[in-house]
């Protein structure tokens, strides 16, 4: 069986600076995989490379065994990869309901059709409402997304990401800036909605990481220095030296 996501020698340079310096990683289908590392290690850049936002300087990326290295974000999304963003990235002037509905349209086969009305499609609207229910925004569905509270926007971000029913879900710091209780809720939410799917996440909160992840990769200066189960990573001397000491400081300045 092929892995959900494979990276082979992926590199990325901005001008003379190499940010990602040769990543080889394989994430099997159904695994919850966390990528951790200090600030500036290149975690978000790696996300952008996988999801097609940035072009790659070198290397290949395969999604379910198919090469996606040169594809545009929307093509990669259509092949079953959906992602969220570290900085909230929603449709601010559309209603909460519409945000989720837009996340559904392509995957439910509506494409750019201009002969069907979105308001008459029962399955579409019910699915959107179900997702809103899951992310706890059902009662807020008529507000413009731009006026939601921060935590609600983060939840909506996840809602849009999972709406399309992608096989591979990538979440970029889903709990960043949240209070403790909010974080707990989000972790539960993630656990619930990624049931049976592959999850790749970047996260600073070690509690969340060790709670959710099946395996963890540690990214430092554009290289993966360790990959393994939470226990293995926790035990790794290299990780402790290179990274864990820095995490507290990193967390402190994160927000």
């Amino acid at each position, binding site marked *: 069986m092929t892995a959900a996501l494979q990276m082979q020698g992926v590199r990325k340079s901005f001008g003379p600076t190499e940010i990602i310096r040769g990543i080889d990683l394989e994430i099997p289908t159904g695994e919850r995989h966390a990528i951790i590392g200090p600030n500036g290690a290149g975690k978000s850049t790696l996300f952008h490379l996988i999801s097609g936002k940035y072009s790659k300087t070198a290397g290949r990326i395969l999604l379910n065994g198919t090469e996606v290295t040169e594809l545009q974000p929307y093509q990669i999304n259509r092949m079953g990869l959906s992602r969220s963003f570290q900085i909230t990235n929603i449709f601010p002037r559309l209603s909460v309901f519409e945000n989720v509905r837009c996340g559904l349209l392509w995957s439910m086969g509506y494409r750019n059709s201009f002969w069907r009305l979105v308001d008459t499609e029962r399955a579409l609207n019910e699915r959107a*409402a179900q997702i809103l229910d899951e992310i706890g925004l059902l009662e807020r569905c008529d507000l*413009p997304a731009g006026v939601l509270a921060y935590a609600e926007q983060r939840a909506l971000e996840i809602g849009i990401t999972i709406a399309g029913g992608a096989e591979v879900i990538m979440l970029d710091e889903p709990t960043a800036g949240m209070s403790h209780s909010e974080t707990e809720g989000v972790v539960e939410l993630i656990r619930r909605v990624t049931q049976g799917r592959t999850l790749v996440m970047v996260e600073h909160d070690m509690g969340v990481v060790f709670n959710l992840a099946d395996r963890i990769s540690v990214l430092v200066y554009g290289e993966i220095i360790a990959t393994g189960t939470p226990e293995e990573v926790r035990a790794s001397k290299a990780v402790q030296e290179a990274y864990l000491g820095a995490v507290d400081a990193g967390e402190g300045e994160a927000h």
Partner: protein
Amino acid sequence: MSATETGSAATGKSGDRTGAEPAWKRVADDQMRRGAFRRTLPVWGAAFVVLMIMPLLFSSAVGVTIMNQMGISIVFALSYNMLLGQGGMLSFGHAVYFGLGGFLSVHVMNYVEYDGWWLPLPLLPFVGGLFGLAFAVPIGSFSTRRAGTVFAMISLGVGELVAACSIIFVAFFGGEEGVSGDRTMGPPVFGSEFLSEVEVYYLIAGIVLVAALFMYLFSRTPAGRMANAVRDNEERAEFVGYSQRYVRFVSFCASGFFAGMAGGLFAINYEILTEENLNLVTSGWVLLMAFIGGVGFFVGPIVGAIVLTLLQTVLSNHTELWQLYVGILFVLTVMYAPRGLTGLVAMHGPALRTGRLGILARAYGAAVVPLLAFLAGVVLLLEMGNVANQSVVGESEAHVFGLTLDVSTVAPWLVALALAAGGGYALVRLAPRLRDAFARATGQAGAAS
């Protein structure tokens, strides 16, 4: 939508799940019910009735002429808003599709007259639309790659190119004389040969209704909804499976089609198309109409088209400064009412819903006199200044508001100055009260809901 609404929000989980039906099902039903086309039927019906009785209210030839022009502008401005309001594409060259659709419609009209083609007149706008579409497809294929500034620049370049070509290619565009035709040469429709203006009015009204209906429906399709999404956040749209470029392209083509339809209507009404129909002035004018009306609302461009057509046809007969007034109106709109005239009305929605309009009415009532005084003063100053600048001996009379003022005397100037200064001062003094009344009327309403 107000700040209070946001602030009072509890980060609630899903609603109570009492009753047999789950909450999400209720919400989905609710969304579908409210989005249902059925619910807008009364509005369309009312529009139909208004359109039908308008010629009875305004039966003079000028009245009908102006209404015909309004109808054409409405379709054109609505098509423009498919770009700017719904798709986030600022175009400086939208007249290209309007004009080309119109030119080809006149040519078709002539083929009907001289070469025996068969085409009932009411179908001509659709032919115009197809031609608009035919030009939008190739141009859109490269111009929609980016939104924002790049799109605006390409539209400007294409607009200049086509406008220049219209003077160079005389065989097709007829040079500065344009191309004319005769609408009465087609087969009669329901016994009408469209000889009179009123018959043309009903034809235009019908097409306006149909075009507006389809543009409205387009905004409710997946393509239309995604156009909004791409406008809001093109990056995010890419990550839910949509190519921003293709989404924009679809909107652009649809917009080109309806602009071409408006061009076809123009051809029917005026029976002549000239270079001015596709130059930058027309392109700028449609931007003004859509923006002043309000690009964020479906009815915005309709309001804008009506208001600006009136300004152009009626106000221009009373003052040669009308374009100055339009310029001032436009700049003020951009600065203080970016949601346009419709936005100004719409922001009273919350107050209306909670029945607190009375609070505002009193505050506004107090401001009416100072406002009128201020406007009258400013207009007087501008009009008298204009007369004074022209230096015609023995013609120092300014005709404003039906008054005749001698600008060579001091008195009218003092009066105008006093009106403007007094009105302005009173308005500045009243401003806090107005703001307060507005907050009370809408803010408390938000908290109460």
